[in-house]
C-alpha cells in the first residue's frame, strides 16, 4: 500500500535537490555580473572597455560677466565621451542654451476649430500700418500693488519684426501677442486674422478666441461672433466667453 503523504514529502525533497544546481548557477552568475560591473565601472581601475580620457584641468575663464570681480565657474562636459564609446554620435548640448519653451496651455484640448463648417476668409488689412516703432519701454503701474499691469510704450515698438518672426516660426504666443496688439490699436481685421491663425495652430488659448470674437463684433459680424462663442463655450466652459455672450445677448434684446 502506498504511503502517499510520505511519498509527497520525498518528492518535494527530490524537487528541491534537483533545482539546487540551477539556483546556484543563477546566483553565481548574478554575483559574477555584479562584481564584473563593479570592477568595470570603478574609477580606480582603467579597463579596456571604458575609454577614459584625461580630464582637462579647470580653466578659470575671465569672461565679460556683469560682475567683473566675481569668479566665474563653468562646468565640464568631458565625461560624456566616457559614456558614449558605443554610441559615438553625441552632440554635447550647451548648458546655457535655452530649453524647449514651456507654453501655458489650458488643460482641455478643444476641437472647436473643426466644427466651424464654413472656412472663414482672411480679411485683408485695409488700414494703414503704423510706422516701425523703436524698442518699447516697460512701465510698471501701481508699484505698491502686488498685482501689476504692464503698459506698453508703443512709440518705439516694431510689430513687423514680430509678424515676420511669427510667419517663420508659427509660435502661437507670438500670434496672440500680435492679435492683441492689433486689437488694442483698433486694427480689428488684423486682430481677427492673427487670432484666426493662432487658433489654427493652438485652439486651446482662451484669450485668442476672445480676441477673435471681439474682433468679429467690432467688424459688425455679431451673429457670427455669437455662434463662435456658443461653440467655444460648449467645448471649454470658459467663464469669460459666457460673460461676453451674455453681454451680446443683452445688447441684442435692447
Amino acid at each position, binding site marked *: 500500500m502506498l504511503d502517499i503523504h510520505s*511519498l509527497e514529502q*520525498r518528492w518535494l525533497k527530490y*524537487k528541491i535537490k534537483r533545482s539546487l544546481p540551477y539556483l546556484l548557477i543563477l546566483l553565481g552568475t548574478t554575483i559574477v555580473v555584479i562584481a564584473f560591473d563593479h570592477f568595470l565601472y570603478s574609477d580606480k581601475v582603467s579597463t579596456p572597455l571604458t575609454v577614459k580620457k584625461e580630464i582637462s584641468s579647470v580653466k578659470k575663464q575671465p569672461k565679460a560677466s556683469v560682475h567683473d570681480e566675481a569668479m566665474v565657474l563653468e562646468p565640464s562636459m568631458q565625461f560624456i565621451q566616457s559614456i558614449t564609446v558605443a554610441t559615438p554620435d553625441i552632440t554635447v548640448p550647451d548648458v546655457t542654451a535655452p530649453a524647449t519653451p514651456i507654453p501655458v496651455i489650458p488643460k482641455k484640448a478643444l476641437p472647436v476649430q473643426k466644427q466651424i463648417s464654413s472656412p472663414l476668409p482672411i480679411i485683408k488689412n485695409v488700414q494703414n500700418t503704423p510706422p516701425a516703432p523703436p524698442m518699447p519701454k516697460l512701465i510698471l503701474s501701481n508699484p505698491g500693488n502686488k498685482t501689476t499691469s504692464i503698459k506698453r510704450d508703443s512709440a518705439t515698438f516694431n510689430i513687423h519684426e514680430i509678424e515676420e518672426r511669427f510667419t517663420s516660426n508659427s509660435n502661437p504666443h507670438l500670434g496672440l501677442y500680435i492679435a492683441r496688439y492689433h486689437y488694442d490699436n483698433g486694427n480689428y481685421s488684423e486682430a481677427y486674422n492673427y487670432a484666426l491663425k493662432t487658433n489654427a495652430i493652438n485652439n486651446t488659448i482662451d484669450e485668442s478666441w476672445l480676441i477673435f470674437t471681439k474682433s468679429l463684433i467690432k467688424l459688425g459680424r455679431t451673429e457670427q461672433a455669437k455662434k463662435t462663442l456658443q461653440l467655444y463655450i460648449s467645448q471649454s466652459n470658459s467663464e469669460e466667453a459666457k460673460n461676453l455672450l451674455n453681454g451680446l445677448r443683452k445688447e441684442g434684446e435692447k
Partner: protein
Amino acid sequence: MENSLFSKPRDLFLDIVNPRDYVQIDSVSYMYQNLKTSVQKPLKMILLYGKPGTGKSMLLHKLHHDLSKHQKVFMIDIPIIDEGDFLRVLAQKIYSYVNREAITLTDFLELASAVNYTQTPIVLLDEAQLYTPILMEKIRLISDARALKFVIALHKTENEDIIAKEHFQTRIWESIELKNASPEELKVYIQKKLLKANCFDVASMFNDKNIHLISKLTRGNYRDANKLMFSLFTLYAWYEENYPTKIKHNALKTKWIEMAAIHTGLIRA
C-alpha cells in the same frame, strides 16, 4: 478503490509474462519474425540476449505459444541447475521417457537417436546465464548431435558475453539482441496494452511529454515501465478516491509520475 477507473489499467502492468498479453512493437515484431523463420532452419542454436527487462522472456513465451501448435517445443523458463535433473526432465518432456533416477548424457543421446522425429524438437531455455559451464557444455554436445535445437535467452552482462562467445560462437546460427525501447516504442507499448483492454480514457491521457519522462526514468526498459505504470495507476486510483478534483484527464501529472518513480526506486530520493 477497486471500482476506480485506474484499477484495470493498473492490473495490466503486473509483471507477469503472458504470451496473450504480447504487444506488437515494430522493431521487436521484425526480430520475432526473423526468429520464427530461423528456428525452422537446420541449425543448432539461436542466442537471444539483452538487458533484463527488454522482453526476452516474453518473446520466448510467444515463440513457445506459436510453435507448439505445429511441432515439438519445450520451454524451461526456470533453469534446472542440476545436470542430471535437467536431462531427466528433457527426456521426459520430449521423449516421454520417465525415470525417477537421473540419466547421463550418453543415455540421453542414445534415447534421442532411438526416437527419430521428422522435425528436430526445439528447446527454449530462459535465464540461461544461470546454467553452469558444464551443463552448457552438455547442451552444446546435444545440439552438435542434432538431437535438439536450442533457443537460449540470457542477460547481456560481461560474464554472459564470455559464455556466449567462447562456448557457442561457432555453433550459434543467429544471435538476436533485444534493446531497450525508444520513447516511441514505449508509447506504442503502453497505449496498445491499454487499448487492448478497452481503457481508452486512460490511453488518451498520455502525451509526448509524459512518454519522454517515462522513457527517461525507465530508460526504455519494459520491466521498469511495467513497475512504474503499476505504481502510477495505484497512485491515480488513490487520488481518485480521496482527491478526485486533482485529477486532470487530458494529461498525466508529472509530479505523480515522479512520485511513482520514487516509489519503484527509479528515482533515488
